C-alpha cells in the first residue's frame, strides 16, 4: 500500500519538479567540478548570497516579478561580487577566504536593507526572503524547467567549446599563462558559467544550499575517477540522482522541504563514495593497508629465515 501511494503521487506536478531538480543537479554537478578542482568550492556560497541585492534592485528598477528579470539582476550582482573578491585578493594582502567572507555577508546585508525597503513601500505580495534562502522547489513550473534546460545547456555548450583551455586553467594555470592563454579572461568566463548555474538553482534550493549542489556531486565523483571527463559525467549523474531522490523523498511525507532534502541526498552520495570508492575510498585503503602489513610480515619472516641459514 505504501509503495502504491508513492506511485500515485508521481503525478504531473511532481514529475515536472523532479525533472527540474534533475536538470539542475546535472548542470551544477558538471560546472561544480571545476570549482572543486580549483579549490573554490565556497565561491558558490558567496555568489548565491551576493545575488540578493541584485534581485532587490531588479525589482525596484522594473517593478516586475518576472523570473527572467530577477534572475538577470541576481546574475549581475553575483558576478560583480565575484569580481570584487578577485580584485581584493589581487590588489591587497587580504587572503581569498576573508575576501569571500566579507563580500558574501555584506552584499547579503545590503540586499536585506533593500528588501526591507521594498517591504516598507507596501509590496505585500513580494516574495519572502525564505524563498530566496531555501528555495521553493514545489513551485517549479514547466516554463522554469525550460529555462533551466536552455540556459544550463548553453552554459555547458560554452564549457565544451573551451574544454581544452579550461582544463589547462584548472590543472596548470602557470603553464597556461606561459603558453599565452588569457588567464584572467578564462577565469572570468569560468566564473560566469558558475554564476549561471547558481542563479538557476536559487529558485529551487535557495541561496544557502545552492553551494552544496556545486560541491557535493563533484566531490563524490572525484573519488571514483582520475579523469576530468569521467568525473564530470559522474558529477552530473550524481547531481541528477540527488535532485530526483530529494524530490521523491520530500513528497512522500508532509512538511519535508525539498531543497534541504536534495542536499542531504547529495551528502549521502558523498559519504557512500568516500567510504566505498575503489582505490581511493576509506574501505579500500584499509584493506590495502592490511594486505601490505601481511605481505611485509611474510617478507620479514622469510628474511629472518634466510639470515638463520
Amino acid at each position, binding site marked *: 500500500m505504501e509503495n502504491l501511494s508513492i506511485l500515485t503521487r508521481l503525478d504531473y506536478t511532481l514529475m515536472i519538479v523532479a525533472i527540474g531538480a534533475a536538470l539542475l543537479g546535472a548542470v551544477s554537478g558538471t560546472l561544480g567540478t571545476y570549482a*572543486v578542482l580549483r*579549490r573554490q*568550492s*565556497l565561491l*558558490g556560497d558567496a555568489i548565491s*548570497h551576493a545575488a540578493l541585492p541584485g534581485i532587490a534592485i531588479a525589482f525596484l528598477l522594473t517593478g516586475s516579478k518576472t523570473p527572467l528579470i530577477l534572475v538577470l539582476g541576481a546574475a549581475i550582482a553575483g558576478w560583480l561580487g565575484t569580481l570584487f573578491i578577485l580584485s*581584493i585578493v589581487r*590588489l*591587497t*594582502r*587580504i587572503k*581569498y*577566504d*576573508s575576501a*569571500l*567572507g*566579507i*563580500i*558574501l*555577508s*555584506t552584499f*547579503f*546585508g*545590503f*540586499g*536585506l*536593507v*533593500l*528588501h*526591507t*525597503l521594498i517591504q*516598507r513601500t507596501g509590496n505585500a505580495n513580494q516574495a519572502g*526572503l*525564505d524563498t530566496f*534562502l*531555501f528555495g521553493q522547489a514545489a513551485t517549479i513550473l514547466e516554463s522554469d524547467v525550460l529555462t533551466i534546460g536552455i540556459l544550463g545547456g548553453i552554459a555547458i555548450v560554452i564549457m565544451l567549446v573551451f574544454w581544452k583551455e579550461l582544463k589547462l586553467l584548472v590543472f596548470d594555470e602557470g603553464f597556461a599563462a606561459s603558453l599565452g592563454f588569457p588567464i584572467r579572461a578564462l577565469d572570468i568566463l569560468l566564473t560566469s558559467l558558475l554564476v549561471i548555474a547558481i542563479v538557476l538553482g536559487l529558485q529551487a534550493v535557495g541561496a*544557502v*544550499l545552492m*553551494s*552544496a549542489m*556545486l*560541491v*557535493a556531486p563533484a*566531490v563524490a565523483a*572525484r*573519488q571514483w575517477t582520475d579523469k576530468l571527463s569521467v568525473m564530470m559525467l559522474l558529477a552530473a549523474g550524481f547531481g541528477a540522482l540527488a535532485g530526483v531522490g530529494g524530490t521523491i523523498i520530500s513528497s512522500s511525507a508532509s*512538511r*519535508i*522541504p525539498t*531543497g*534541504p*532534502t536534495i*542536499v*542531504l541526498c547529495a*551528502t549521502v552520495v*558523498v559519504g557512500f563514495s*568516500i567510504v566505498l570508492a575503489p582505490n*581511493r*575510498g*576509506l574501505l579500500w585503503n584499509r584493506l590495502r593497508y592490511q594486505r601490505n602489513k601481511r605481505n611485509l610480515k611474510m617478507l620479514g619472516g622469510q628474511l629472518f629465515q634466510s639470515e638463520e641459514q
Partner: protein
Amino acid sequence: MIQEHLDIQLIAIVTAVACALPGVFLVLRRMTLMSDAISHAILPGIVLAFFLTESLSSPLLILAAAATGVLTVVFVELLQRTKLVKEDAAIGLTFPALFSIGVILISRFAGNVHLDMDAVLLGELAYAPLNRLDIFGYDVGPVSVYVMGTILLLNLTFILLFYKELKLATFDASLAATLGFAPTLIHYGLMTLVSVTTVGAFDAVGSILVVALIAGPPATAYLITNRLSLMLTLSAVIGSVNAVSGYWLAYLFDVSIAGAIATMTLLMFGLVFFLVPNRGLIAIARRRTRQKWEFAQTMLVIHLFNHEGLPEAEAESEVAHLHEHLRWDPAFAAQVVKYALNNRCVLQEETQLTLTERGRTVAQQALVQ
C-alpha cells in the same frame, strides 16, 4: 525612546567588538570561512536546544549550539584528514548538510514550537531591548547586553591570557609546536570562542550577517596596520563605528539594522581600501605615476649627463630632438622636460637643456646604482 536608541546601540557595539576580536585571528589564520560554516551549522543545535528549553536566550541553548559549532570544526577536520577532500570542499560539504537538517527539523515541527526562521537567520536587533533582565524587581537593562557582554569578556580574557601563544600559533604554527605551545589546543580554544560568539550574536544580527561582523573589521584593520596589538584595537574601534553608523542608517531609512550594519561594514572596507596611505588603491596608483615620471626624469638627466661637454652636446640636448634620442613620444617628452624643470634638475635656455648641479647629482647617483 532615547533609552531605546541607547540600548540598541549598546547591544550593537558589544556584539561587534565581541565578534571582531576572535575575527582578527581567523583572518590572519585564513580561516574566515570556518565562521561562515559554524554560523550556518549551529542551526540544528539551536533547534534541538530550543525544543528542550523553549527559549532563544537561555544559557543552555547557547552551550548546545556552540557545541554543534565545535562539532562542525571536528567534522571538517576529519573529512580533511581522509585526504580525499580538500579543506574548502570539506567546509562546503559539512555546513549545508547540518544546515539542511536544521531546516528540516524546523519545518517538520514548526507547528509545535514557536521558532521564527527569519529571527534565527537574519536576527532582529530592534526587538533585542524588549527582552529585559530583572534583578530583584529592578530593570537593569536588556538581556542581550549581559549575554554579549559576558561573551566579550570571555573573548578578551582568552586573548589577553594566551596572547603570546595565539600570536605564535598564528604566525608560526610549527615553531609553536616545537616549543611545546600546543597549537592544536589553541586552535580548538579559538574555535570554541568563535562558536560561542556566533551563537550569542545570532540573536542580534542573525547567522548570515555574523560573518560580516567577524571578518569585516579585522580585514579592514589588516589593510591599515602590521602590528597584531594595533590590529586588535583597530578592529574593535572599526566594528563599533560600523555598528553605530549602521544603526543610524537603518533608523534614517527605516530598514533592517543588521543589514545596515553589514552595508556600513562594506562601505568602511571600501573606503579604507581606496584611501589608506601606502597600501590603498589611490596610494598605489599615485606611487606608480610618480615612479613613472621619476624614471623618465632620470633617463633624461642621464642622457644629458652622458653628452655633457662633448661636441655633440648641442644636438643631443635640443628639446625638439629628445623624443628621437630617447625614443619618446613628443608629447610625453615635453611633459618629462616640464617635470624635470619643476624639480630643478635641468634648465632650459631657448631650445637647449642644460643640467643643474642637482640634475648632475641625480644622474651620477643613478649611474652608480
